[in-house]
């Protein structure tokens, strides 16, 4: 709030369009980046957001466990224990979360599931970023007919139902993990491309860029000090809010049987097989479901917190 105590900053220009990225852009559109003080300010606000903080800790814990546990856990994720089929979770007896229909330890499978889900989330989002940011930045920077052409392409692609195409891809070309990353990433880049392009376009014309140029600051320095920090904010928010979408999408594919190949599994695959045996062995469904929901929940809260932290208004 300004020292005047004036409220109501007169914001408009809600970007129509799907998803969190658009919201992020609308939020950051009116900001002038002061370089470091913006980040320090945002960091302070983020620290005080208890929900986001708790989510961050929980997420870190899950990720840590997912990475570390399979290394020293006595059971492998594909290792059947024929004498212990469908055991319920127990604190003694070694199988913390019980076993599944093939006698495989559920705990280590859930940990592997988290690994895969998180990996898919991060990598696919990176793919999305790579394509989307480049596309948007080039379009915004070049302007003119290049911009018009690139954005028209985005508009057309926007209407295409990508989900069916991804499904077709997965069915036709096998369930390669790499293919999954690329397919999911290729589907989601349109949103970030629009945002980055809009942001680059408006940044080019912003007064402080003109002022910097008028003071003789070089193009490179302008990009470093003004353009990148602004883009960074949006990109960070977008990443944290896209990862859960991607994780859920991968879970959806797994549910249809199009995810990673057995015996490797993601949380979606675990939920899918768990749902089949739901009546007799509910824990096979609930435990991976809880982990899946927790991971997605945490990312959403963190993303929300980031957005509020970078938003100058009093929410």
């Amino acid at each position, binding site marked *: 709030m300004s020292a005047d105590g004036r*409220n*109501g*900053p*007169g*914001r*408009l220009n*809600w970007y*129509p*369009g*799907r*998803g969190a990225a*658009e*919201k992020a852009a*609308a939020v950051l559109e009116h900001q002038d980046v002061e370089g470091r003080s913006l980040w320090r300010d945002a960091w302070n606000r983020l620290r005080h957001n208890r929900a986001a903080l708790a989510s961050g800790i929980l997420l870190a814990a899950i990720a840590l466990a997912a990475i570390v546990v399979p290394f020293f856990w006595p059971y492998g994720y594909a290792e059947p224990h024929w004498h212990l089929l469908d055991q319920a979770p127990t604190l003694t007896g070694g199988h913390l979360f019980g076993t599944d229909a093939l006698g495989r330890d559920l705990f280590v499978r859930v940990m592997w599931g988290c690994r895969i889900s998180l990996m898919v989330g991060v990598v696919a989002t990176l793919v999305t970023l790579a394509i989307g940011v480049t596309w948007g930045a080039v379009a915004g920077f070049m302007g003119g007919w290049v911009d018009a052409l690139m954005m028209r392409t985005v*508009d*057309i692609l*926007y*209407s*295409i*139902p990508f*989900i*069916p*195409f991804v*499904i*077709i*891809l997965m*069915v*036709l*070309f096998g369930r390669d993990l790499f293919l999954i990353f690329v397919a999911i990433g290729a589907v989601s880049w349109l949103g970030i491309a629009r945002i980055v392009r809009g942001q680059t376009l408006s940044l080019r014309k912003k007064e402080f860029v003109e002022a910097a140029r008028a003071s003789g600051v070089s193009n490179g320095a302008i990009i470093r000090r003004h353009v990148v920090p602004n883009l960074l904010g949006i990109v960070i928010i977008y990443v944290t809010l896209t990862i*859960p979408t991607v994780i*859920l999408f991968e*879970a*959806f594919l797994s*549910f*249809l049987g199009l995810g990673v190949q057995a015996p490797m599994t993601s949380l*979606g695959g675990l*939920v*899918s097989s768990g*749902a089949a045996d*739901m*009546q007799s062995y*509910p824990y096979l*469904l609930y435990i991976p*479901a809880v982990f*899946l*929901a927790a991971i*997605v*929940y945490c990312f*959403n*809260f963190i993303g*929300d917190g980031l957005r509020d932290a970078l938003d100058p*208004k009093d*929410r």
Partner: protein
Amino acid sequence: MLKYSLKRFAGAIPTLLIIVTLSFFMLRAAPGGPFDMQRAMPPQIKKNIEKMYHLNEPLWEQYGRYLGNIVQGDFGPSYVYRGTTVNSLIAEGFPVDLIIGGFALLIALGLGIPIGIVAAMRQNTGWDYGPMALAMLGISVPNFVVAPILILVLAVELQWLPAGGWAHGSPLHVILPTVSLAAPLVAYIARLMRGSMVEVLNSPYIRTARAKGLPTRTVILRHALKPALLPLVSYLGPAAVGIITGSIVIEEIFALPGIGRFFVNGALNRDYTLVMGVTILYGMLIIGVNLAADLLYGVLDPRVRYQ
């Protein structure tokens, strides 16, 4: 307004063309054909069948033939469900999806919008934090997790509702699939509405409205609602996509005779025409919804119309 609509319509055609072309060539590019999965048949018979379905012609010819057909509304015969046409399969299955999808959207809007508005009006109080946290949960839990749980509780334990099946659209059979489909949608719409309403309520023109002494009810309904709904209108396209993908899963869980199963199974069995037919239908739906959303946006926001 007219020019605006016409521009939008014109843009739909190249999109549709791309969808058709992309799916056509993608399917053909995959290894295997529609008749590989079935009983091994003598090569001569296989050749004849392929000839009957024009599968031995060069790809471009097949493409041209297909285009000519669909322009006349003929999506061809199903390669796997021998004796039936794609048109009839779709005609049979689509109403199912239309019903559960349509109702899911209505529920989502009918619940999500009021919840969002109330949360925004009572910002940062219990009425805000509670529903929003719940909504966050709704977004985080995929509908193929919600559905089995609902089945477990309502169908198996309490036995209030059937666990699956369609029974020609009996209301009881419609409830669970629709609710499962609607759950993440309600959550998202509530959050979207809340965020958008909060922004609108902080706008200068709302302050002017209050300075004129208008009662809260008027300020919300007449001044704030229209602008607050705009992001929701833009969301209709993605919402349609969500409903479509959700329906594929829901159909499987509840064993509903919709077109989603044609899609996945069709792709697995290389039933080219069936998969293409469903894909094109999905494409048309999404384009249609996006078009409607665009037009609706123009109705709500006068500035867009007059460009």
